[in-house]
């Protein structure tokens, strides 16, 4: 075999390895984003499970908040329907966050409810889940940022172009969530 042929084979093998590494790293990043979205979904489901309990407990005391409670219940049943796009899901969950925040503010005027053991436990679970949701969103954003870096940075961007991978959007804190933070301050987080 001539030297040129050997060099040519060497170059080809090297090129194949480079393509493989780039391809795998991009797929890895893409899967991480999906995985992170799944993690977030799991946390959101935990919150759906809590809502009926919360509604029934609050109902017993807070007689004037029926409208608010009905709103949360209907939002929840929309959310668990399943055939929703990711964007719709996110939008619905923002609304749920906002409504739950409003309930927690309304509760302030019912001292009996605030002293109820069952309610206190629910409130603690809800705080915990909100914190977990926020953690999973940050994890999702980190995965998306990592993926976007892969899509836009050299040399993976060339590969990403060929694989037709597009930038993904990170979560932005919506207006309702900012309100949510203020509710948090009420509890002196």
């Amino acid at each position, binding site marked *: 075999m001539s030297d040129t042929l050997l060099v040519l084979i060497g170059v080809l093998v090297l090129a194949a390895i480079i393509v493989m590494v780039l391809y795998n790293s991009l797929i890895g990043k893409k899967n991480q984003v999906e995985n992170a979205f799944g993690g977030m979904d799991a946390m959101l489901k935990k919150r759906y499970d809590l809502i009926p309990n919360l509604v029934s407990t609050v109902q017993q005391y807070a007689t004037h908040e029926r409208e608010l409670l009905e709103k949360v219940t209907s939002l929840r049943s929309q959310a668990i329907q399943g055939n929703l796009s990711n964007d719709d899901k996110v939008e619905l969950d923002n609304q749920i966050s906002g409504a739950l925040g409003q309930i927690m503010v309304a509760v302030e005027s019912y001292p009996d409810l605030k002293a109820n053991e069952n309610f206190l436990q629910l409130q603690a679970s809800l705080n915990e889940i909100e914190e977990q949701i926020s*953690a999973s969103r*940050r994890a999702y954003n980190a995965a998306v940022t990592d993926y976007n870096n892969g899509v836009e940075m050299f040399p993976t961007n060339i590969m990403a172009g060929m694989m037709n991978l597009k930038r993904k959007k990170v979560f932005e804190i919506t207006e309702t969530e900012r309100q949510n933070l203020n509710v948090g301050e009420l*509890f002196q987080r």
Partner: protein
Amino acid sequence: MATQEQFQALYETHLKPKLVVFEEQRKGIVKKFVPVLIGYFVLMILLVLLLVKAYEESYWPIVSIISMIVLSGGILIYYSKLVSPYTKNFKTDVVGSIVTFIDENLAYNPEKTITLAEFRASQFEEYWPSVDSWAGEDYVEGLLGKTAVKFSEVHAQYKTTTVNSKGHTRTTYHNIFKGLFFIFDFNKDFDGFTIVLPDYAERHLGQFGKMLQSWKANLTHGELVKLADPEFEREFVVYSDNQITARYVLSTSLMRRLLTFRRQLNKQVYLSFVNGKLYMGIPVDKDLFEPTVFKTLLDFNLIREFFEYMQLGKDIVDDLNLNTRIWSKQ
């Protein structure tokens, strides 16, 4: 929280009278020890002279060397016998009072320590060498508000053995960690581990450092966690077995609090969150909470330093808001 002024008042009214008594004991020890020390030096000089003069004689050099070793060992034993009751009483009385002053729910035991098993639970060994030698003292335990806390001075080392050309093996011990080691009951329930270490690579090497850390994470059970707070990222590197748990534990507000704490303390901090507990190491070079022997005890700065180190446990609970129990863990 006990302030510096309150501590100064405690020092004047309560600690100083005790220190005066211990100062007398200390002077007594020095008085007894100095003549012995002078005698030791005189004998050592004589033995060295003997060694030099008679090094060609048959048995004199050996006699001289053996005597030197026996004498040195003897004086060490004598010194520790002389000082140990003084140290023990000082710790129980003075350091104990400082601990109770900080919080009466805290109990102090000068001889106990955080155990190696407790240290191992922190999983620091995933990123540090495995511990071969473990020692510690000055143990404090109690409940600060709703947060259970224990800490002690610890000293962890690992050993290396080398064989030289003559076939002699030589074992050397190297420091892994020396300083105060804390265990807190964390205010959130979680499984798995998240480890926060000072970040050297990223600070000095930037993006390339981050790549190195990510490879390093592959060698252990964890993965690198990239957090959204750039200032926090510059100071610390975070590894965890779960990206979501890591962020659940390190909430945005806790990251801020940790940064502030670390900057005020002006020392490195090592943290590990494992199964609902927070483990924290703060390196300290010197041996803490020991009374002086050859310097006066009546030194406010010395006692204040003991107070400041003992106060750290409480500072951490307050600064990291560990008593906030709004989640399901009460």
